[in-house]
């Protein structure tokens, strides 16, 4: 069987340059697989799978749902890019969650305490968020460089510390005030000059798309350009692919760790901005949690590719939004979380399989292309 398989591979793919199609196959297969698993779960819970998925799709493609999904996706996207920056260098920034929450809280308080002309005010709030995110992430970077502490451990712990620090700060004695008409507390609302208005992007819905979607797109483009077209990006990717090779090539790996961690934290700081500047205008107890962890899943889903992450973020947001309808049909909305979980797991497996396959297919291709020419050139060399 193994003989037949490799011959088949030789013929079918050995000589064919693998394009992007094969890498697209992985996520699609994974989503289909996740659909199957979800169907099984639905069957067990007694809901009809096809019908349920149909309901979700019907609801999800309504203009209103698309706007909601896009708004959710902006934050997801920024968070995932923050994670991806670390991933490209083999740094696991699990702390995006703490970084964006702390950044949003401080930025919200700062933004409410000043008044500036509109674009400046927004820029100042964004800048503060980035600085706080970068600063918080840098603690993990410093610990790694100075003391060899694994960033996985330190960022997880820093998440817990950020939570505690956030609760301490979000207190009426410090940054918080009572939110009018509720027993919620939050920072003072941002003035109008720091509120970003929405864009009427999707026809057929009165809801507007969060204006900070532009920021997300810009960060995506910047991410691509910096990583793929600059020296710094090359050094970062080289370090991620092989640290010893990067060291031998003259990359100062410690410095790269510090910079990459700070950059990741800065982008993480942006993850809360679409909600803060475009929706809630203050940081309250109701500020959404867990964006950072969603970002990890989406970065994996999108394979650290800016376009892939965009698709991943949209898929995730779409699932989140369409889960709202399930309750009306007396289906537990947690089914969506099961689906999201299986998608991530199966995508990772599928990517790994495709990746291994690609490597060996390329080796085959090289050897088969060389097999013809080698003879001639070698004889020539010996003459």
């Amino acid at each position, binding site marked *: 069987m193994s003989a037949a398989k490799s011959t088949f591979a030789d013929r079918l793919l050995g000589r064919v340059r693998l394009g992007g199609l094969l890498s697209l196959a992985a996520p699609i297969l994974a989503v289909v697989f996740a659909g199957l698993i979800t169907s099984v779960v639905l069957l067990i819970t007694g809901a009809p799978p096809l019908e349920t998925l149909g309901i979700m799709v019907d609801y999800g493609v309504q203009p209103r749902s698309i706007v909601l999904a896009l708004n959710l996706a902006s934050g997801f996207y920024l968070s995932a890019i923050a994670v991806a920056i670390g991933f490209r260098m083999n740094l696991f920034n699990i702390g995006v969650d703490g970084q964006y929450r702390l950044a949003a809280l401080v930025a919200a308080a700062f933004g409410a305490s000043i008044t500036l002309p509109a674009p400046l005010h927004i820029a100042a709030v964004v800048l503060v968020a980035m600085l706080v995110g970068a600063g918080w992430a840098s603690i993990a970077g410093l610990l790694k460089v100075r003391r060899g502490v694994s960033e996985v451990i330190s960022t997880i712990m820093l998440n817990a510390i950020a939570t505690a620090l956030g609760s301490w700060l979000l207190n009426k004695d410090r940054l918080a005030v009572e939110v009018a008409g509720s027993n919620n507390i939050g920072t003072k609302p941002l003035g109008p000059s720091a509120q970003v208005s929405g864009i009427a992007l999707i026809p057929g819905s009165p809801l507007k798309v969060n204006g900070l979607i532009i920021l997300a797109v810009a960060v995506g483009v910047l991410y691509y350009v910096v990583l793929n077209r600059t020296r710094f990006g090359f050094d970062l990717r080289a370090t991620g692919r092989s640290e010893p*090779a990067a060291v031998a090539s003259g990359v100062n790996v410690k410095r790269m760790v510090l910079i990459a961690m700070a950059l990741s934290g800065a982008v993480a700081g942006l993850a809360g901005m679409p909600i803060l500047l475009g929706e809630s205008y203050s940081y309250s107890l109701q500020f959404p949690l867990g964006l950072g962890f969603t970002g990890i899943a989406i970065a994996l889903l999108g394979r650290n590719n800016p376009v892939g992450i965009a698709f991943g973020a949209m898929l995730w947001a779409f699932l989140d939004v369409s889960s709202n309808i399930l309750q009306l049909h007396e289906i537990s909305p947690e089914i969506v979380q099961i689906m999201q979980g299986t998608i991530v797991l199966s995508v990772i497996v599928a990517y790994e399989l495709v990746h291994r396959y690609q490597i060996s297919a390329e080796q085959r291709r090289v050897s088969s292309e060389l097999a013809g020419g080698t003879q001639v050139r070698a004889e020539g060399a*010996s003459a």
Partner: protein
Amino acid sequence: MAIRTEGAVISTSTPAVELEGITKRFPGVVANRDISLSVQQGHVHAVVGENGAGKSTLMKILYGMQRPDEGEIRVNGKAATFRSPADAIAVGIGMVHQHFMLADNLTVLENVILGSEPRAGGVAIDFGTARRRIRQISDSYGLGVDPDALVEDLGVGARQRVEILKVLYRGARILILDEPTAVLVPQEVNELFENLRGLVREGLTIIFISHKLDEVLSVADAITVIRRGTTVAEVSPEDVTARRLAELMVGSELPSPQTRESAVTDVVALSVRGLTVRSEDGRAVVDGVGFDIRRGEVLGIAGVEGNGQAELVEAVMGMRPAEGEVLLGDKDISAWPTLRRREAGIGYIPEDRHRHGLLLEAPLWENRILGHQTRRPNVRGPWIDRAGARRDTERIVEEYDVRTPGIDVDAAALSGGNQQKLIVGREMSGEPVFLIASHPTRGVDVGAQAAIWDHLRAARAAGLAVLLISADLDELIGLSDTLKVILRGRVVADVDPRTVTPEQLGSAMTGAGEAA
């Protein structure tokens, strides 16, 4: 001689191993096709071929690590199919790997029984029985292995004997030795050959993989030559000269590393003074080493691996903290980071190209940038100059004869020799003034080896200063203008490469020369 006659007597019986029409399509550059091999019982059967000819693949097939796509394996006349090494061990085939697979912090006994521990009372390990059996095997084959020695205290030769013993302990009657002499100095090679003779005298069969012809001629009873993945000749050592064997292997004449005339000038390119590198526990692994390399000079460092060569190189590259002075020309670069040293014109062919020399999962043109990411034609200011880097990669592929279908394939897809040619081409570009060549031709085929030697010679003639580290004594003697021997981190001898023999060099490397 004695073995040979004995072998001839036994050879009337069934061959110990027969391979027929073995074909393996394998990811990588070399495949096996239509290999036939017949090994007589009680023979040392050598399988020779240049690096990358497919010897290792063949042996992996025989040891069950790879499955052939076509062909038949017969052991002692019976057809065999191996799904894993366990199947091969079951029919009495054992393999001694080129790289030892021993746990340093365990004793010989523990290493030997690891994975096939004799049980006492169902749970406990029966150390007594194991110790007796190991002693018995060691005595009957003259291996001289002490079961209670700690592996980390053993030398390379002794470790190899432990590996052999490990295989014998599992009941192997057919031993595959993959390049067993690659890690040994000449004296240890002779001891190994004595052991091998002892083994065949007891009726064992040995398949000996090598590309060192003099060794093969001195120890083998029969020789099979592999070239480009297939068996091209079956010869007897009496009827063949080393030169003829080499021609069979390469299909052309064997290149020699002989440098022609000296190109050494008076201008010192690199000067190292009192260089000391300490390990984490404060021990000096490089101890007060000093030397000058002039323009046009190749300084060779000979030494058994692990005597501080790697640390010395990394210290000169600025990859490892060190005490002492390193001067490039008249500039003191001791405090410079690696990048600045590279920019000042130090080229670096690293010992382990996969770890230090390449990004395996990146295309060739990105690998061209590695180590040169601040210089044209790879970058323009902070931007990567894709077009420039790609053009220059094309140039390297052309000038250095890197066999690849294009510059967009990943480095991992190339054979070792072609990867190395790419590295050499890269490190030679940007007009370096000083080059560190660490095992520049290790694991590359003869063709690539000759090409790399030519490039080194040409660069040397053009005034390049080279620090050459190598385990290949012929290469060291042939290419170097000056030779220093390093032992336990110290330079212990200066040797004239024009007069020294590999044996003398080998003695100096092991410290035997000190006493003499």
